[in-house]
């Protein structure tokens, strides 16, 4: 593979145990949206402070892509979300609370993968509309969309269309059938922009996305808990774990919560700061 590549030092499946260096080495990956990237940077900064040899491979893509990546050894760890991962592993899942979700997740996790401790920070899938739409159609919960869905276009990442708790789930749980789904592959920002500009009427956006506040979007409540709990949790390949890594990542999880995550996201997305720097600042202050 990339053995001849001077820049590709990580990624080997035995990376975690290599080099005689106690702290070991690790390749941190991330999904292709800014928050996950930020979290990955936080992991990376913390681990590197702990003396681990860290490599990053960010913006990999959707869950489907990076899970394959972690399993084949392209990356060793990345920030995950309990609900999403659990649903991915077990589409039949019914649990929605943080504990139940975690339990289900751990049950279905393949042997070669582990999750470490979960953090309080939560970033759930949600359906949002503009405040104008909410007002006009008198929307507060997802269920309120039922009579209007036929006139509305739903927008979100392509995988939302096929996931069990995506378009299908909306139909099953809330009986919604939208006029169309616009698959917006180029990251969450495109979805936000499309909603703001009216190219879509309802959008699938993560709850921590600062754009929600900025644009005065309305997050529709999810009374039926279609979208499961989504606590941030480090996903790591079993053979990449060592005590230093585990301890450090658990510390990170302890320090994270939804508020500080959201405010960091404001820094990154609204103020345009470099995610790596925001992460560094966070690690310096909290760990």
């Amino acid at each position: 593979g990339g053995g001849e590549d001077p820049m590709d030092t990580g990624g080997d499946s035995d990376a975690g145990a290599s080099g005689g260096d106690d702290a070991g080495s690790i390749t941190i990956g991330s999904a292709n949206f800014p928050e996950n990237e930020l979290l990955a940077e936080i992991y990376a900064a913390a681990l590197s402070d702990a003396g681990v040899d860290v490599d990053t491979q960010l913006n990999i893509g959707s869950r489907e892509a990076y899970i394959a990546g972690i399993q084949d050894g392209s990356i060793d760890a990345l920030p995950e979300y309990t609900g999403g991962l659990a649903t991915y592993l077990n589409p039949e899942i019914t649990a929605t609370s943080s504990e139940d979700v975690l339990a289900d997740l751990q049950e279905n996790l393949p042997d070669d993968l582990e999750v470490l401790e979960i953090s309080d920070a939560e970033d759930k899938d949600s359906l949002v509309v503009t405040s104008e739409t909410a007002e006009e159609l008198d929307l507060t919960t997802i269920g309120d969309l039922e009579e209007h869905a036929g006139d509305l276009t739903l927008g979100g990442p392509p995988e939302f269309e096929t996931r069990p708790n995506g378009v299908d789930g909306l139909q099953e749980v809330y009986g919604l059938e939208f006029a169309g789904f616009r698959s917006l592959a180029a990251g969450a920002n495109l979805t936000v922009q499309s909603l703001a500009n009216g190219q879509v009427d309802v959008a699938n956006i993560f709850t921590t996305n600062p754009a929600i506040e900025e644009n005065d979007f309305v997050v529709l409540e999810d009374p039926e808990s279609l979208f499961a709990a989504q606590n941030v949790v480090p996903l790591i390949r079993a053979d990449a774990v060592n005590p230093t890594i585990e301890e450090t990542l658990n510390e990170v999880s302890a320090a994270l919560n939804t508020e500080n995550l959201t405010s960091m996201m404001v820094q990154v997305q609204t103020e345009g700061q470099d995610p790596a720097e925001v992460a560094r600042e966070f690690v310096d202050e909290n760990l």
Partner: protein
Amino acid sequence: MISLTWQWLVDPATWTGPGGIISQSITHLRISLVALLLAALVAVPVGLFIGHTGRGRWLAINLAGAFRAIPSLGVLFVATLLLLPRLSGNLAFELPVVLVLVLLAVPPVLSGTYAGVEAVDPAARDAARGVGMTEAQILWQVELPAALPLLLSGLRSAMLQIIATATIAAIVGIGGLGRYLIDGQASRQYEVMAGGAIVVALLALLVDLVMAGLQRLVVSPGLVVAKEH
């Protein structure tokens, strides 16, 4: 995986319906043709001018090179960021895509055109002037028809690139065969991706065949014979 891909391809449901291959191909072709047309509108006159006057050849070569160097993905993102808030509806997505494709198509069309005009036998050009044709008549009656083979092969190679690249339209949420690549990737349905890639390649070949046929129709047989000799 090959058999899965095959199954996907032969499943009638894959082809029909609003998200089916047929309707996506039509979208794909529509965007591609618009882009090709716009590129031709820009590049052909410029190419003709350069070929006819011999002026600006250096500029054209380097401009074409610089155009080729512009990464499509970056342009797509910039254009989307710029245009999305300013336009409404589908146009907000389609315009950036078309822009990218036009940029992609300009270099081959431009160089095909001026190379075609430049390759016109100097004796024929001299004779045209010598029998009393005006500059415009030389351009339209001699240089353009004689440049057609190279001009059209420039258009053809531009079209091949456009069709392959138009798949990125799916990234910003419009239809076309790129859907199968993007959605297939997102949902790990690799057979959909592979099938989509095959369909794109086939479409490109089909369009090339059609254009080759067109080329036959519009290029004077005299030039074909001349090339064979």
